[in-house]
């Protein structure tokens, strides 16, 4: 994964960068499988490696394939990135170990879901039970976000057709 990221930063051919981005998503999906998060891996493989790669290719077809070489080393962004990176790594230091049963996330509501999920919803896949039933409002919000994103893209990208239709209507009136 590290090699892919370094290549993404170094390469100037955007086509290769998009392809490497897809490979990175696939690697991330295998990593999620290793962590037993099959649902997340599913999403990552389908969205990250599949659809978003195709969408980026579609966007690439509208611009040029080569990145413009500015030739300058961007100092201030570099400092910001390094500082934030150090802060994030420092933040992970007091996180509980992976798989620690006493970690806060495992003692809050998760035991309740695991014990009562099957009895209350009769759905064997706890992830689905939590997503659709216990956290129904969250999921409704997420669907609304996806819906809004779709509307936004449609408004931005299919604008010329709409204005043409609008003009046509205006012409009829005159």
């Amino acid at each position, binding site marked *: 994964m590290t090699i892919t990221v370094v290549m993404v930063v170094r390469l100037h051919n955007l086509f290769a960068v998009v392809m490497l981005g897809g490979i990175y998503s696939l690697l991330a999906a295998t990593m999620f499988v290793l962590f037993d998060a099959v649902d997340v891996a*599913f*999403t990552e493989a389908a969205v990250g490696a599949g659809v978003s790669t*195709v969408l980026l290719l579609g966007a690439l077809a509208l611009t040029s394939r080569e990145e413009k070489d500015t030739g300058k080393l961007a100092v201030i962004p570099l400092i910001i990135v390094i500082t934030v990176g150090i802060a994030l790594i420092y933040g992970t230091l007091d996180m509980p170990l992976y798989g620690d049963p006493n970690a806060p996330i495992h003692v809050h509501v998760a035991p309740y879901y695991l014990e009562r999920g099957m009895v209350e919803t009769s*759905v064997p*896949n706890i*992830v689905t039970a939590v997503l659709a039933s216990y956290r129904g409002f969250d*999921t409704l919000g*997420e669907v609304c976000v996806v*819906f809004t994103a*779709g509307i936004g893209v449609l408004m931005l990208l299919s604008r010329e057709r709409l204005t043409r239709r609008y003009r046509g209507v205006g012409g009829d009136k005159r």
Partner: protein
Amino acid sequence: MNHHLVVRVVSKLLIPFILLFGLYVQFHGDFGPGGGFQAGVIFAAALILYALVFGLDNARKVAPDSAVRVGMATGVLLFGFTGVASLLGGGNYLDYSALSQNPLGGQHLGILLVELGVGITVCSVMIAIFFSFAGRNHRLDKLEE
């Protein structure tokens, strides 16, 4: 992509199975991994593959713009009205136990409907985004060649 015979034949073979797998992930999401979101993306991926190989115009015949837009709204509305239906059944909003006489049956029905709503919206939005990107001009086909 008209002269890529292998790609055309292989994707013709694959697309029905991708669609079937999408439906499986959708309706088997309560038992195995998956659910509405994943199923919607897989379903959309099949249509996007179709559009890439057989051209945007043919794909637009399969999934007309108007149908895609209606689908986007239908999914959200299905989700919302499932919540309203559970209100009418005497429960809280999105409390599926009120949907049927048997609380467990209600939960099952509610989760199925809600996941279906998620699937329809996600699938339609993905297709709409792809169509509007690819529809800007038809150079996408050239890039792929």
